């Protein structure tokens, strides 16, 4: 809202009496009522966020007191002896997310560069819309496709191929099941590409045209101008889009649960089945018996929550930093 509108309605003047009088005038014409009415709903949002943090914290008390910080570093996950540690799941989450990023970052950033710099506007808008549709596809549908398309492909072609050509690496040794870290990473990569692509494109479009023109005027080819003048300018924002995609990947539940295999183990092989934080919660929450078991799962949720909040905050800052700088010119 412009400043002029504020003056018209009469901002409360500093000082006691004037303020009270303005308040009553605003109360009479309904402004103050409307203000308070909408404020209540806005504060509900604030309250919900606080309540969410409190509930996660309060309901993981048993687990936090019993295991302390060693919870994050322990490898055992034994519901019978009630010994719980998060390490296998943290490992699974990191491994699947790294695989997803390795595939999705080149694809997403490359596609964004093409759509922002080289493609004609109409084509760029059309293709971007299709990619954004991909982001709207529910997670469980990716899981469905993962089970019936990607798992067979991984089991019959990709995994044996990697094993026969790169089998000397510990990453590609051991039995092939189809389900496992690698498959989960591949499914995740398809799910996060749209985020990287559409945000990176936005960031690239916000780079001032002078950057390109100056490079081209110096005799650079289109690729040189893009790679040396545009992409460095947008670097921070692209990094932001990657962080955002990473936050998505870490918290992604259904698709990963359906293809990761479901074993609380740490294995150097990418073909091995495992668990991510989100998928172990999804898989075991309803069958968790006993306070320690349930609250350990809630503590896992708390850890996941903290991690994604930090990543999301960082991503937002980075994206804001570039798009603001871009449009300020």
């Amino acid at each position, binding site marked *: 809202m412009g400043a002029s509108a504020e003056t018209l309605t009469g901002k409360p003047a500093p000082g006691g009496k004037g303020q009270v009088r303005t308040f009553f005038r605003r109360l009479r014409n309904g402004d103050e009522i409307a203000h308070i009415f909408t404020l209540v709903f806005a504060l509900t949002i604030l309250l919900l966020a606080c309540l969410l943090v409190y509930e996660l914290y309060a309901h993981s008390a048993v687990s936090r007191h019993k295991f302390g910080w060693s919870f994050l570093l322990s490898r055992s996950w034994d519901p019978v002896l009630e010994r719980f540690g998060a390490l296998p799941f943290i490992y699974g989450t990191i491994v699947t997310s790294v695989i997803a990023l390795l595939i999705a970052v080149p694809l997403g950033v490359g596609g964004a560069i093409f759509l922002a710099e080289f493609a004609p506007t109409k084509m760029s808008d059309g293709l971007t819309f299709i990619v954004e549709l991909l982001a709207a596809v529910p997670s469980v549908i990716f899981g469905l496709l993962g089970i019936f398309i990607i798992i067979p492909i991984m089991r019959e072609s990709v995994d044996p191929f990697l094993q026969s050509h790169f089998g000397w690496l510990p990453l590609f040794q051991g039995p092939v099941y189809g389900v496992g870290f690698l498959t989960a990473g591949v499914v995740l990569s398809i799910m996060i590409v749209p985020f990287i692509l559409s945000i990176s494109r936005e960031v690239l479009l916000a780079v001032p045209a002078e950057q390109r023109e100056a490079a081209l005027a110096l005799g650079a080819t289109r690729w040189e101008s893009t790679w040396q003048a545009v992409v460095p300018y947008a670097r921070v924002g692209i990094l932001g889009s990657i962080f955002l995609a990473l936050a998505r990947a870490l918290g992604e*539940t259904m698709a990963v649960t359906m293809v990761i295999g479901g074993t609380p183990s740490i294995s150097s092989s990418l073909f091995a089945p495992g668990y991510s934080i989100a998928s172990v919660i999804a898989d075991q929450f309803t069958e968790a018996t006993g306070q320690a078991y349930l609250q350990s799962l809630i503590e896992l949720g708390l850890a996941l929550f903290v991690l994604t909040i930090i990543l999301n905050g960082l991503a937002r800052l980075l994206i804001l930093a570039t798009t603001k700088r871009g449009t300020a010119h």
Partner: protein
Amino acid sequence: MQYRNARRKLVNVLMLSATGICALVTVAILIAILAYLAWNGWHYLTWTFLTQLPAPVGQAGGGMGNAVVGTGKLLLIAALTGIPVGLIGGVYLAEFGGKAVGFAVRYAADLLNGVPSIVMGIFIYTVVVLPMGHFSTLAGGLALGVMLIPIVVRSTEDFMRAVPSTLLEGALALGVSRWKGVATVILPAAARGVATGILLSLARVAGETAPLLFTSFNNQYWSQGWMQPIASLPMMIYLYAISPYKNWQQEAWAAGFILLALVLLVNIGAHIILSRRQSVQRG
């Protein structure tokens, strides 16, 4: 020199095509998904599938009528709880928001938006399911409702801010109070965008599965009321896809087809509505 220029041109062409291929691959994935799902899902889609209860294991036929109704009921609760909070909260941020409170509310909405959906499930589990003692439609609907809020807040605020401030100033100059100006000038001007945003948010939560896992859970029969567990399309897709039975897996495909068609139709519709609005403004 000539060699160098030739190399630069080659790199230029190579990299241009490489980025083009990246874009193409990404788009091709979506089209492959749509085609595969449409082919498989359409195949198994029948009228009885949409209207009947699931058949017992090993028995042919049966459907997901209860899941279709269940998703509708869950969305109804979500809409009744999430939309008012999101909408009016968005109005506050756009028109009445003070600096400090506005920042805090916006931050809270961003935080809720970034919460992994499974964590939202845990939240509602601790707040609703634990005190109540069992899974319920209400809990599932509330989980989806909370997820609606940040999306609706964001889109409402954006669309209201997009209305030129001169419109409100004109109304105020005629002696209208601020809230009347907002209610009769800004809101109608932003209505189409705000409504589209709400529709998009509903489409997004309609496909959420993780928050339902331990809130509304599942039910093999027609729902027995708002306080009882209920079936839903995403849950059915999940449970049937991981089941070992061939006909259940086929039903998962059909359900996936319905869900995807719903989500894509709303998204494409929203895109058309919003782009038409823009062209009217420009012209």
